[in-house]
């Protein structure tokens, strides 16, 4: 069972986990080689470090910046934050799927063995929608959270229902999301008998 938290994701590891890539702590200025790596590999922490470097670009001479060109447009900033969010969303989805996988294979009503997985699942859901509200995915997770906790639905769900939830998360994670798509999948939760508007 995975227990990745957002603090882990924010501080250093996201996007820098492959091969021989060098990990750049978010609060440390990168070397120029780190900078070029981050641009190529769309690293989350690398981007933040790049942004920090650019903030002080006023004091640079033009020739210092000739090795890179980064338009400071709103679009570019949004693209970068979208990439960062996508990385975080993927990591969270993997952790959610890990718990859901176990529940889809093993969950039995009135069996306490599921509790560690259910507990972690609920914590992850809450952590995501509390911290990444601006991502439409958070809307789906919030609806799932409400549906699961109401009347302890997490206990009465069948293995098959857990499998369906897993499928939905997998599907949503692999898409560009808008609220129309999210609403479609919230409705699917409702069709599964999960009360997504219980209050």
């Amino acid at each position, binding site marked *: 069972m995975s227990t990745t938290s957002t603090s882990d994701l924010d501080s250093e590891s996201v996007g820098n986990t492959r091969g021989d890539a060098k990990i750049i702590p978010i609060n440390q200025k990168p070397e120029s080689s780190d900078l070029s790596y981050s641009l190529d590999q769309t690293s989350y922490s690398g981007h933040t470090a790049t942004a920090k470097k650019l903030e002080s670009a006023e004091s640079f001479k033009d020739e210092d910046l000739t090795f890179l060109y980064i338009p400071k447009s709103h679009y570019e900033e949004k693209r970068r934050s979208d990439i960062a969010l996508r990385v975080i969303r993927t990591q969270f989805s993997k952790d959610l799927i890990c718990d859901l996988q176990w529940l889809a294979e093993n969950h039995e009503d009135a069996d306490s063995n599921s509790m560690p997985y259910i507990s972690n699942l609920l914590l992850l859901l809450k952590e995501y929608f509390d911290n990444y*509200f*601006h991502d*439409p995915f958070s*809307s789906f997770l919030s609806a799932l959270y409400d549906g699961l906790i109401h009347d302890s*639905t997490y206990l009465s769900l069948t293995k098959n229902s857990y499998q369906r939830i897993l499928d939905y998360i997998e599907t949503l994670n692999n898409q560009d999301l808008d609220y129309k798509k999210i609403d479609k999948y919230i*409705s699917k939760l*409702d069709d599964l008998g999960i*009360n997504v508007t219980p209050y």
Partner: protein
Amino acid sequence: MAPEKHFIDTSVMRPLISSSSAVKQYYQRELSNSLYYCSYIKMEFMRGFIIPAIDFYFTLKMPNIINISDALSLWSQKFQSRELKAVLSMFAGLLYSRHYDYNELKDKEKASQQVADYIRRIMAIVTHKFTDVGLETSLCAKSNSRINFNSADLDRTFRDFLNAYRSKSHDDCNLHLFLERNNSKINEISDRQDEKVKDSNSAGFKEIVKALRSESDISCKHCSKIGDAIIALISPERMRLEHTDYSFDYLMMILGKNHKRHPSEIVLNRE
């Protein structure tokens, strides 16, 4: 045999959408999946439930409301109507489930985001659960107002919606045409009220008849007073009107239409 088709009044629509599992299970037993509504009922649902929910969102955003507790206290002390109490109970439940600190300023922002998202979710479920019968679509222009949700600017999302909703003027209102078309039926309701009213649950019905007889100008206020009569008149012959209000017992009896009165949400939750 084809399942019975249900025309859902606003009083049943809300518990069908947003209520405890006990209430929803009751309606699952009572109703098939063929649930219908019309644009007028959608407008009533927005007026009675979505608009107050948005009002609560803006209460949370007020600068003098420094935490969740303040917002809930203000709402419970100052707003007493049935609809406003329903909104309070809904959001109290939602925020309690989040385990936010009711006395912390920082959790107020998270709370307002969750309230906004819940409003959006309700609107999504309405569209999913009910089919519009397509009757009297031009009766009220407000029924076409939509929330264009922008998570990056929630205040604007709701302000734009409220502005659009409230800007629909009398020019867009076709209530007078509807009343003219149904004049004979309205007269029948008015003429036969005394012969039908025998018990003590008729106060609401009598108020509706009084408003129908009055010479009031057409306005949203007048419309809200005669709302049940409008829904009774729109209710399709081939469907059963599902409601919780006593006034429909008389209206539907006089009009000779099929209907069923269900227990209130309070009674269902108690049971």
